[in-house]
């Protein structure tokens, strides 16, 4: 259909139109995709948290020189650059590995092998007992005649040649004896730092094995050289109900555990005086197979893992036992899924509470804090020993095939699990499982406590008190404004309320914390009175007014009641403020423990009466100010919903003789109910996400109660406080992202609900 040229659209216009069409379609869609990309990004940041541990084979190399003698120890340095095996003859075989990096991946290779025989014992004598402390890189050797020595293993990086090389050095830290001469030691254990060490050994005699301990304390000789000097030796066998088999010494050098032949475990506390038997317990008391197959301290030496001869796996921790006069004793805190048999060997990580266990071809990587098995699987060969790299990024196994198997281990966030986030976790030193948030601590062996429950509860607590305040006030104000207020005034009232919706929350937080909190602290009774007086005054005044003859009532035009009420309101507030202290003297008195006199102090009374703490920056203040922060938005939405109820309905009700209050309550309110509910939802969402007020006006302590007079820590405040300090990509960083996602989800669900309700309402009005 050919148009005359003058009717044809110019080519230029068409081109521009088409170009803009595309640009806007693309741009608009891109903005929407980008905005929803937020959610995707946050989720992507969180996903690594829930990834289990992964072991990937990296290198297999022969444990040459190991001949046929069994390996007694397997050890590794921090970077897994020079792992070593100690054989039966006491010879250290170091396997120097190098890591070539290509395309971001590292490829390990065996460089060279060095064998060292430390000359700690007289020629011809070989060690008979071995112990290894990976954290301090120390090795204890026990030998014939009760000889005992501790070797220090040092690693130094050497840059003299082209490539970085690691050189090891073995140094004898101390030589001593344990037990009586004449028999070789069958087991040794040691613990402690450079200033104080505790060593223990078992010496087999025909009469039965005997247990000896000896402390070493650093002291300076006259030349100023510091050395560990041996203290008195103690023989402890008489204390024990059954012969000792295996020993574990705490790294604090203040106690040891002796695993006994009958499956019981003796906990002995050691001080300068000697050792005292604190506790005898049987880890697998309730099972037919009571014998302990494997025992290993968890990093920090507060918890110990036991595997029974039948493969049951349990963890015992030192904590103040309520059932034992609050003594710090071992009690069972965790159990893991049973292994198939007694663990042949075990090793613990020196970064966190990881534990590596092996039996035959099976191996398992456990994280004890959260009671989770991070990895479990079969290795290609049966393993004799295993060890974790110092950074928990490598694992090395000595196989029955006389090969060493190096694995890359990836387990960046072992602390995290659903249980850790939402369940009770039994942390070390605590008397019971708890919900707790404490992300950082002062010591290396600190367990991050990442329960989100106190934060979510804190969020709900703040929101609850805020809504308790905002919902009645906001709804009443909306009802009054939409139904009773004179239309002329409405034009001023609404913008004022809307303006207050935009007050920056940092301002409200400042007001709450620095002005309101000190004011309220000493005037709680007055505040309580205000809460009673003002509504009472409103109703009483209203009732009184309604009784007056119409002539005098006409003096206040309808729609101006609130203005007439304002002075009454202020008077009620003032009266309550002044009457607070007398009421405090009347009702809230406690006996002063010093003088016995009655002291009127609500704070003391509250703590006394309920046993709950009273803080200056408490939920009352936060609830009030946060309520104030969310009330305007609640008011605006509710007022809109009420105002939009079709006039025909109101007129109908009024025409049928209903009073204006009856119309408002029985006709308007039910019609707009969905809108009011949506207003509450939106306010709820706002209060949930409010950050600065909570950061400023509470103590930010994670709590689990709904006490009005202490603070809380909310999800949002937690992010604001901790995220600036959280290292990128770390567990805390990702956990805070998870918190943000929870927050996002909470508000998104609430807002969607509110929005859908509002749309429904709109449909409904359309049909009226």
């Amino acid at each position, binding site marked *: 259909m050919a148009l005359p040229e003058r009717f044809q659209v110019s080519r230029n216009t068409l081109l521009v139109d088409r170009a803009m069409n595309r640009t806007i379609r693309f741009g608009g869609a891109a903005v929407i995709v980008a905005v929803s990309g937020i959610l995707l990004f946050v989720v992507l940041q969180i996903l690594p948290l829930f990834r289990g541990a992964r072991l990937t084979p990296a290198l297999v190399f022969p444990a040459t020189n190991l001949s046929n003698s069994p390996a007694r120890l397997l050890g590794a340095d921090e970077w897994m650059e020079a792992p070593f095996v100690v054989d039966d003859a006491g010879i250290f075989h170091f396997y120097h590995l190098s890591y070539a990096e290509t395309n971001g991946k590292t490829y390990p290779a065996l460089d060279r092998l060095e064998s060292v025989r430390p000359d700690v014992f007289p020629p011809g004598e070989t060690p008979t007992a071995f112990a290894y402390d990976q954290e301090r890189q120390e090795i204890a050797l026990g030998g014939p005649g009760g000889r005992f020595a501790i070797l220090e293993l040092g690693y130094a990086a050497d840059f003299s040649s082209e490539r970085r090389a690691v050189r090891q050095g073995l140094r004898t830290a101390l030589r001593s004896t344990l037990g009586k001469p004449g028999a070789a030691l069958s087991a040794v254990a040691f613990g402690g730092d450079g200033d104080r060490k505790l060593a223990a050994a078992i010496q087999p005699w025909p009469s039965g094995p005997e247990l000896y301990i000896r402390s070493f304390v650093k002291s300076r000789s006259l030349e100023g050289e510091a050395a560990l000097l041996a203290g008195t030796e103690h023989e402890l066998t008489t204390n024990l109900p059954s012969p000792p088999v295996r020993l574990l010494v705490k790294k604090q050098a203040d106690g040891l555990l002796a695993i006994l032949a009958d499956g019981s475990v003796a906990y002995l506390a050691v001080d300068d005086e000697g050792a005292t038997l604190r506790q005898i317990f049987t880890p697998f008391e309730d099972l037919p197979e009571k014998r302990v197959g494997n025992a290993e301290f968890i990093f920090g030496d507060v918890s110990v893992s036991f595997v029974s001869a039948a493969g049951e796996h349990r963890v015992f921790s030192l904590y103040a036992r309520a059932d034992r006069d609050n003594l710090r004793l071992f009690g069972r805190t965790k159990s893991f899924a049973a292994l198939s048999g007694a663990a042949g060997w075990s090793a613990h990580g020196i970064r966190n509470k990881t534990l590596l266990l092996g039996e035959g071809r099976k191996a398992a990587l456990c994280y004890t804090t959260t009671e989770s098995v991070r990895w479990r699987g079969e290795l290609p060969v049966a393993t004799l020993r295993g060890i974790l790299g110092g950074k928990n990024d490598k694992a090395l196994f000595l196989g029955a095939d006389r090969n060493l198997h190096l694995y890359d281990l990836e387990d960046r966030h072992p602390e995290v699990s659903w249980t850790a986030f939402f369940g009770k976790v039994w942390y070390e030193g605590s008397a019971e499982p708890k919900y707790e948030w404490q992300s950082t601590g002062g010591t290396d062996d600190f367990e991050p406590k990442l329960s989100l429950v106190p934060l979510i509860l804190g969020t709900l607590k703040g929101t609850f008190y805020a809504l308790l305040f905002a919902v009645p006030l906001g709804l009443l104000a909306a009802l009054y404004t939409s139904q009773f207020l004179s239309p002329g005034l409405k034009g001023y009232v609404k913008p004022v309320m809307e303006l207050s919706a935009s007050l920056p929350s*940092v301002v409200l937080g400042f007001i709450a914390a620095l002005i309101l909190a000190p004011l309220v602290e000493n005037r709680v009774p007055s505040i309580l009175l205000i809460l009673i007086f003002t509504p009472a005054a409103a109703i009483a005044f209203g009732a009184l007014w309604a009784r007056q003859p119409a002539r005098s009532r006409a003096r206040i035009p309808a729609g101006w009641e609130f203005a007439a*009420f304002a002075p009454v309101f202020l008077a009620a507030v003032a009266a309550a403020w002044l009457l607070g202290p007398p009421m405090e003297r009347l009702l809230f008195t406690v006996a002063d423990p010093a003088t016995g006199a009655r002291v009127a102090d609500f704070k003391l009374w509250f703590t006394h009466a309920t046993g709950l703490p009273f803080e200056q920056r408490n939920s009352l203040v936060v609830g009030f100010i946060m309520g*104030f922060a969310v009330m305007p938005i609640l008011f605006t939405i509710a007022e809109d919903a009420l105002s939009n109820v079709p006039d025909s309905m109101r007129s109908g009700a009024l025409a049928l003789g209903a009073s204006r209050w009856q119309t408002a309550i029985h006709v308007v309110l039910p019609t707009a109910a969905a809108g009011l509910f949506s207003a509450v939802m939106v306010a709820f969402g706002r209060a949930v996400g409010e950050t600065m007020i909570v950061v400023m006006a509470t103590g930010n302590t994670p709590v689990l109660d709904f006490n009005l007079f202490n603070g809380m820590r909310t999800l949002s405040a937690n992010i604001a406080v901790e995220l600036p300090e959280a290292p990128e990509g770390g567990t805390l960083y990702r956990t805070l992202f998870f918190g943000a996602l929870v927050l996002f989800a909470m508000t998104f669900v609430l807002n969607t609900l509110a929005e859908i309700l509002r749309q429904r309402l709109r449909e409904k009005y359309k049909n009226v």
Partner: protein
Amino acid sequence: MSEHPPPSTGSPGEAWVWFAGLGLVTGLAMVLGLLAVITWNGLGVFWPKDILKVDFKEGSAAGIGGAPALLGELIKTQERKMGQAPGQPLPMEWQVFTGNKDRYGQMFKYFDAAEIASHSKPAGVARVERLEYGPALGFPRSLNQDDGGVLPATDATFEKKLREAISGQRALRRDLRRVEKNEIGAVNARIESLRLKAKRLERNPGDPAKRAEIQRKIDAAQTEYEALSARAREIRGRKSGARLVLALGTGEESEVPVGQIVDTWRPNDMNAAQKTGHFLAAIGSYIVDEPREANTEGGVFPAIFGTFVMTLLMSLAVMPFGVVAAIYLREYAHQGSFVRGVRIAVNNLAGVPSIVYGVFGLGFFVYVIGGSLDRLFFADRLPSPTFGTGGLLWAALTLALMTVPVVIVSTEEALAAVSRGVREGALACGASKWQTIRSVVLPAAAPGMLTGLILAMARGAGEVAPLMIVGVVKLAPELPIDGLFPFIHLERKFMHLGFHIYDLGFQSPDSEAAKPMVFATTLLLIALVVALNAGAILLRNRLRKKLATGAF
């Protein structure tokens, strides 16, 4: 709702109407009360307060170091809660600002009202604002000049001489600042960039001549630096050694170097007009000055500037995207359940907590984008990050993301309000779709879009929580815009009024001394936000009226 029937006698529920009125009264009382408190306290900071001389009763130990009297500004009187005997009425105590922190170790003094024998407002007391240690309060005794001459305060020319000395020193400080900050700063920046160039050359060695050339330039800049610092030393050498001798309220004398004095005035001798003049001048200098003494004194200019630049950048980022998305949703997209879903989602994003945007901004903008930028373009400066840490750009983008739903929603509303007839008229005249939108729809919707932008700006200017994560600092050494190339430094950290309030009120070592400053900043921020919002509301109302009367 247009008219209310008058309440008939005995109409049920009248009392409850009053009860409903309670909600409105409380809400309004709180809003107005809060604004009143902030305005009163915020403006009160600048009003010159009278200085009281308090004489204590004979033998009272309430004074500073047991002194029988003190000079101070009355901050408040309150009931003393601590240490009273049970059953006794609470004693009243005074809180007085004494200043002279260098002498007294603190600036506030509390004492029981019962200890006071008398108090008066002596004439001649001066308040001396200093660069360090906060203000000094005392009676000026004399001006000990450089040449050893002593000019007693009774001399007729004393006031004039003192003012001259102070303004001379102020000019000196300005000179010094210009040399140290601007000129030496520029040279330093040049040396730094040359060093980076040298470092880059070292990594892939090639042209030795080039390296020598750079070295030569560095040396030249170094010489320039030496010359400038010599000049700075010379200016510093001109600093006057003159001292103002004050007789403090506690009896002793204190010397204040004139070079340390920012300003001095005698509040007790001022009349209302003088006080008003001083009040206005104080507000002015608060707005244009830099902060002193860990932000507790001086002005807030860098914070105002930072807030302004950040909000501006945010608006630049949010406006095109928000408008394009809204035009797409309203004019181009097929109006089905998908668009409805998107609309609900966008609405909801406006309600997502700001801190969530902060988290995203840190993770995505700072670490992912900023980290990549650093690796690509600023590898020489690594490991110290350039864009891989919080900064102005990332803060603006984060807030833009946060406010984009606000702009989308209000633009969409404005577009929807343009009547169908107008569009159809344009189309019927032969305009293409884009021509209709550009020439008819957008101009009609412009006020609505502007409302959205203003609301977004108000929200952005008042928001603090996400900024704490993505780049705001308590004290930025440099402004984000200055005379050094490339003039706008998007990677720099910046100061912000909202964060200033948080930091002063909660992180400051002396929160009592910081309180006036917090109030002033709060008032400023509220004024800014309220002005923006009121503008938006007015604009919206005008728009509604215009649409209601039916344009065209």
